[in-house]
């Protein structure tokens, strides 16, 4: 640039990029702040839970039954009840949910009824869990005559989990590029073989992740089991037709006892429940990232 101010050529430094740089800085600071806030919140929550709860954790707290009118002892029947429920929900919701997701994503023509079905499933995910509890009580406990039992609770929680599993399966299947299906079909695969050999195995990490997330949510729910068979106290469940204790309900009921407070049981239960679900999620997340590492389309 000459002093005379008469520019003959324009070079890159003459372009004004200040506005763009400022906008970028603002976006960066804003998103980073939100991210840090979330991390602090999670760390605080888990840290507080750990500090309050870790003192209660002992061999006998985990493997004993409640004693002294629920003010002492352990939570083993509740842990077993929750494990039963996880098992039952897996047995009902996984096969039905995954099969429905496969049907919606791969088999159904995109017709009006199918679109309505998809809307219905999305709505199902939005139904409050206490409504599921009421429905489960009316349908499974009374109409099907299952009474207050692990089975009735498992079926109710399976309903809560179904939309999550279906949506996760459908989404995971949609992630698989059309080119993969075309490649398999062009090699002389039937649709079933294309699905079984290429599409499903590739989508599996996504499907399992979604299913486990749904399962964790179900395992932590209180409202759906409230009317369908959860017990204030019950011995370790050995039969799915019995009522049973469960961790979230135990936590709720122990925290709301007006006369005989036992805060160490409440915090200990909270820590055990959170720990169980966190470990499951961490294992699944690690497995998935291992599986996905090579899947960059």
């Amino acid at each position, binding site marked *: 640039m000459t002093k005379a101010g008469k520019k003959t050529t324009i070079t890159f430094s003459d372009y004004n990029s200040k506005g763009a740089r400022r906008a970028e800085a603002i976006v960066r600071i804003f998103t980073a702040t939100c991210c840090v806030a979330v991390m602090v919140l999670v760390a605080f929550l888990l840290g507080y839970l750990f500090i309050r709860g870790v003192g209660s954790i002992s061999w006998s707290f985990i493997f004993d039954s409640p004693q002294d009118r629920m003010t002492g002892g352990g939570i083993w029947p509740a842990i077993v009840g929750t494990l039963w429920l996880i098992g039952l929900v897996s047995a009902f919701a996984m096969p039905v949910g995954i099969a429905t997701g496969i049907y919606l994503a791969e088999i159904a*023509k*995109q017709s009006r009824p199918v679109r309505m079905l998809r809307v219905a499933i999305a709505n199902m995910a939005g139904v409050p869990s206490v409504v599921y509890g009421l429905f489960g009580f009316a349908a499974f406990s009374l109409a099907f005559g299952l009474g207050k039992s692990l089975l009735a609770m498992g079926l109710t929680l399976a309903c809560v989990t179904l939309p999550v599993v279906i949506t996760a399966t459908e989404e995971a299947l949609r992630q698989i*590029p059309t*080119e*993969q*299906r*075309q*490649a*398999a*079909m*062009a*090699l*002389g*695969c*039937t649709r079933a*073989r294309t699905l079984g*050999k*290429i599409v499903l195995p*590739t989508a599996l990490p996504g499907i399992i992740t979604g299913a486990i997330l749904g399962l964790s949510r179900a395992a932590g729910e209180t409202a759906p089991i409230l009317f369908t068979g959860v017990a204030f106290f019950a011995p370790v469940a050995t039969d799915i037709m019995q009522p049973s204790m469960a961790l979230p309900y135990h936590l709720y009921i122990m925290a709301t006892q007006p006369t005989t407070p036992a805060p160490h049981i409440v915090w200990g239960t909270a820590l055990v429940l959170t720990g169980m679900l966190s470990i499951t999620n961490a294992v699944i997340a690690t497995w998935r990232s291992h599986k996905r590492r*090579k*899947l*960059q389309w």
Partner: protein
Amino acid sequence: MVTAQRQESSQSGRFDIENVSVSYGSEKALQGVSFCIEPRRVTALIGPSGCGKSTLLRCFNRMNDAIDNVEVEGLIALNGEDINAKAVDAVSLRMYVGQVFQRPNPFPLSIYDNVAFGPRTQGVRKRDELDEIVIDSLKKAALYEEVKNSMKKHAFELSGGQQQRLCIARALATRPGVLLMDEPCSALDPISTGMIEETVQQLKEIMTIVMVTHNMQQAARISDTTAFLLRESIEEPAELIEICDTNTMFTQPSDIRTENYITGRFG
């Protein structure tokens, strides 16, 4: 079964196409196409974007079946047999008429398992038989030397050009008599393109090749016969303008529209 196919494939692979039209829903994309594809030659389909080259190519292995609303009319006979007849199984048709796609699309499996996929679909289970097919197919696709020590490597670790040659090997492993190639080099660098063109030259000794290409130089370099398709306006379906020997097409095209296209006046 495999030997039977091998013999058959060295004898034929001829398409007779009579008055073929394709519509997407109510919109006619392609109309009144008639020509024949000679066995063991490379036939190039050229024309500007949207002229129905790929649509026509997908008719030859009935990949249009998988797309909703597509209707194919007219007669397409492969070795004298109508491939759209009720009795014809699209699955076995596609084992005989292989396809290589525009962008490399290997499966998320090892190199070996990618190539072995087709034969396994056909029921080949014996390890030594599979090994033989895999090695033979990789050699034909000019990839064997580069991967012979890493057959267990994940296919996604290969470069784009290698992945496309892997896809060619995978298509060859079903022992096809016809290989359809839909712009197989459009996502590749010139060196990879050269290798694939060389492969095509060798493959035509044993099978019929139909290649869609955007690249007229490529058509001129490697094809024996060239078909020029053109959609003259948005309202009209595309048509086959001219088909003839590639040399004739590029030196003395008989239609003025062909001449305009290949001399670069449009498209």
